[in-house]
């Protein structure tokens, strides 16, 4: 046990303690457990949403992108800020509808809007398909952080098990209340750590920010901008737009909106949050400093750049704090993800297949799903290999496919029918899977096209297929759907379980 490890485990215990304490005096039914009784103010919702942004991906991946790819990494800053602009408009709409119809999960929203429990099953499955790789990524990050910060004395496998078990226990007891409290501790920690590292590192090694960037620029004159081909301007624009659309479609983000106490929470969030994303700037600074100071990390190893540079620079106790912040960045989103997956599985899949299930049974089942999903994720974390990265990229494209059906459902006269919504989502997801597995790009599909189109994110195609199918099927089924669709407004309060 070195100092770094003691600090890391100290923070793990603190997180668990806060999580358990947060439930005091509350009757933990499904509404309390998964949406916090819809009583969270701006601060809690802000931290919950930020909790999902500042995951291990930001911490390790943000520096890794700066380290490995340079200029294209800045797309992360762009998409988060722009996603909050969109959130200003859609956040209140989701919340208002969810509150009126007492919704508990993301599929509930689609079930209620389209009056189709079957669509709920489709959306649940899409969500779980996207979430599991995301959880795996958090576990992987957790393993890297703890094993690096322990200077190799704890294996990454052991770290993953410890993390998964703590996460499961804590989530089953405390639900979203625990996540909210831990999110605050986490964000304060990460704020201090990231700011400190981002300022200290360039000054320590180069005497300032500009000398550091100049050194990088001198070594590779094209590194700090977008390249002409590949991750080019058209890649940047299309990727940011797709990610902005997908941002609120993640089941856990969608669910977190339910927990707000009023709709202005989102509007205020969209003012604070863009500034808050600037924290990432400092993560980038660390990545760029690492580029010349710990050279030679290839491919996935780039994830280690921040930790390797820290270990090279600091005493173990500082490494401990960095590791603890990193551990919390895995715990909070991990718990939100697990909760969203288990709530939708128990409520929108089990609850529909077995309509006789009572609210209490579903509430218990939701908690029992947590360890099962956690175990599945641990299994894939330990035995998944490189396919996980592919799966994760697929995850973002999958959730984006929910966007067309979602945005049409907000309109007063929704022209999309439940059949259209369903067919569009299924067609979109099928094309995402095909594209990801065969590694298709617009370049391989149409080699004759100009480079600017070839670099466009291939997700655009899936979204296009989705829209076409959604429109065609909706028009074809308009008559069948017209009758029950009008009634749905009146009865959907009862339709939702």
């Amino acid at each position, binding site marked *: 046990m070195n100092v770094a490890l003691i600090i890391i485990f100290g923070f793990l215990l603190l997180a668990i303690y806060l999580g358990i304490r947060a439930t005091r005096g509350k009757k933990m039914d499904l509404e309390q457990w998964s949406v916090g009784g819809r009583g969270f103010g701006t601060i809690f919702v802000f931290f919950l949403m930020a909790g999902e942004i500042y995951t291990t991906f930001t911490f390790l991946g943000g520096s890794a992108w700066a380290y490995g790819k340079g200029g294209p990494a800045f797309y992360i800053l762009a998409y988060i*800020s722009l996603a909050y602009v969109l959130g200003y408009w859609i956040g*209140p709409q989701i919340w208002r509808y969810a509150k009126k119809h007492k919704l508990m999960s993301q599929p509930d929203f689609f079930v209620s809007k389209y009056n189709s429990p079957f669509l709920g099953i489709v959306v649940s499955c899409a969500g779980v398909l996207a979430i599991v790789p995301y959880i795996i990524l958090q576990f992987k990050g957790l393993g890297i952080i703890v094993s690096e910060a322990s200077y190799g004395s704890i294996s990454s496998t052991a770290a993953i098990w410890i993390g998964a078990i703590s996460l499961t226990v804590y989530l089953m007891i405390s639900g979203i209340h625990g996540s909210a409290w831990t999110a605050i501790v986490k964000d304060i920690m990460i704020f201090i750590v990231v700011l400190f590292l981002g300022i200290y590192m360039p000054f320590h090694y180069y005497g300032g920010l500009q000398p550091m960037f100049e050194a990088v620029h001198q070594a590779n004159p094209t590194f700090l901008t977008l390249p002409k081909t590949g991750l080019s301007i058209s890649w940047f624009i299309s990727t940011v737009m797709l990610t902005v659309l997908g941002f609120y479609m993640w089941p856990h983000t969608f669910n977190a909106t339910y927990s707000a106490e*009023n709709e202005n929470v989102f509007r205020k969030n969209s003012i604070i949050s*863009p500034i808050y994303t*600037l924290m990432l700037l400092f993560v980038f600074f660390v990545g760029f400093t690492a580029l010349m100071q710990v050279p030679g990390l290839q491919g996935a190893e780039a994830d280690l750049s921040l930790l390797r540079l820290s270990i090279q620079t600091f005493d173990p106790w500082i490494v401990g704090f960095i590791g603890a912040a990193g551990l919390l960045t895995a715990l909070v989103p991990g718990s939100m993800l697990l909760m969203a997956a288990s709530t939708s599985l128990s409520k929108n899949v089990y609850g529909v297949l077995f309509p006789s299930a009572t609210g209490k049974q579903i509430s218990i089942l939701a908690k029992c799903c947590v360890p099962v999903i956690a175990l599945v994720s641990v299994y894939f974390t330990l035995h998944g290999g490189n396919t996980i990265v592919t799966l994760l990229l697929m995850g973002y494209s999958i959730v984006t496919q929910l966007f067309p059906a979602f945005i049409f459902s907000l309109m007063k006269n929704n022209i999309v029918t439940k059949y259209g919504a369903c067919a569009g989502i299924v067609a979109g997801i099928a094309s995402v899977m095909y594209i990801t597995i065969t590694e298709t790009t617009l370049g391989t599909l149409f080699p004759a096209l100009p480079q600017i189109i070839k670099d466009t994110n291939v997700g655009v195609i899936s979204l296009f297929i989705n829209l076409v199918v959604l429109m065609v099927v909706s028009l074809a089924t308009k008559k069948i759907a017209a009758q029950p669709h009008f009634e749905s407004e009146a009865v959907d309060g009862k339709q939702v379980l």
Partner: protein
Amino acid sequence: MKILYFLCLLPFVGILGSLPFVNKVTPFILGMPFFLFWIVMWVILTSFIMGIVYKLDPAVRGGDK
């Protein structure tokens, strides 16, 4: 109401629409390459713009119920 929609489009235009013109390293501003500085500036402007939208938005007053 219409001016609000227009304001919300500004960050998109500022960040994405300007890319062909700002994709360069020099001049360094505040120690950052120009491209990075430009994005950072727009992130801050986005907060500012959303603050203005919040002030002007009539829906805000109805939202605290």
